């Protein structure tokens, strides 16, 4: 897919008279749009199949928004990345539905405290995690990414507490809350050395 998009970027650049650097930017943007689009559409479709499309989207977006600031381990190729993203979003969405029959508010409250405690610690210890293809070296950017990670996490925690409170009146929020917890838990896991082993190489910059 990367080759096809590079070819398209080359065609566009020739037509518009752009230089090679502009062509590289167009190819990068095209690849980003394609990968994000395919992952979201597939996660939604597989979410539909397991009867949890909203939950699949909650996992998908909670991971990607947190990832924008925290970084994380990367897969070696785009195909493996798409497969692992879609499989996890679908599995977490399905699991959040399966856990409803055994849901207990007290157990959920303990799970929220444990997961957020762990995720805040992992973020403090490892974020931001860069990659050889997009290194983060400046102290200023590291600080900005760390600050962004904590802002996102705090927003998620507020949303999580809203889901927790709302679930006593609207049962749909039970699975929304569980899927959000599974989303941030997974993303925090990809920041750790164990997550790196699962997905591939990574560099820790903080």
């Amino acid at each position, binding site marked *: 897919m*990367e080759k096809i998009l590079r070819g398209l*970027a080359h*065609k*566009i*650049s020739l*037509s*518009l008279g*752009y230089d090679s*650097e*502009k062509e*590289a*930017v*167009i*190819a*990068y*943007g*095209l*690849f*980003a*749009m394609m*990968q*994000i689009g395919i*992952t979201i559409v597939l996660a939604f479709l597989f979410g539909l199949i397991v009867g949890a499309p909203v939950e699949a989207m909650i996992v998908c977006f909670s*991971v*990607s*928004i947190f*990832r*924008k*600031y*925290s*970084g*994380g*381990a*990367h*897969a*070696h*190729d*785009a195909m*493996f*990345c*798409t497969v*692992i*993203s879609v499989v996890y979003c679908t599995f977490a969405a399905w699991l959040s539905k399966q856990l409803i029959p055994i849901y207990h508010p007290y157990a959920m409250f303990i799970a929220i405290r444990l997961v957020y405690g762990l995720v805040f610690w992992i973020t403090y210890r490892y*974020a*931001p*995690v*860069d*990659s050889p*293809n*997009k*290194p*983060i*070296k*400046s102290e200023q*950017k590291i600080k900005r*990414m760390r600050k962004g990670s904590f802002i996102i996490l705090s927003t998620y925690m507020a949303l999580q507490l809203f889901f927790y409170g709302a679930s006593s009146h609207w049962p749909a929020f039970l699975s929304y809350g569980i899927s959000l917890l599974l989303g941030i838990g997974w993303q925090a896991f*990809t920041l750790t050395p164990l997550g790196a082993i699962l*997905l591939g190489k990574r560099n820790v910059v903080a």
Partner: protein
Amino acid sequence: MKKVYGLVAALSTLVAAMIASSACFLFFYQPEEPASLRDE
């Protein structure tokens, strides 16, 4: 056709710039970032 190419170029440049300000690609694969977008 040039208008369509212009539109695609503008949109992809916008997305590339948005991704450049983040720690990484939003999912688990990171292609090599063009030098002009690097903010290390």
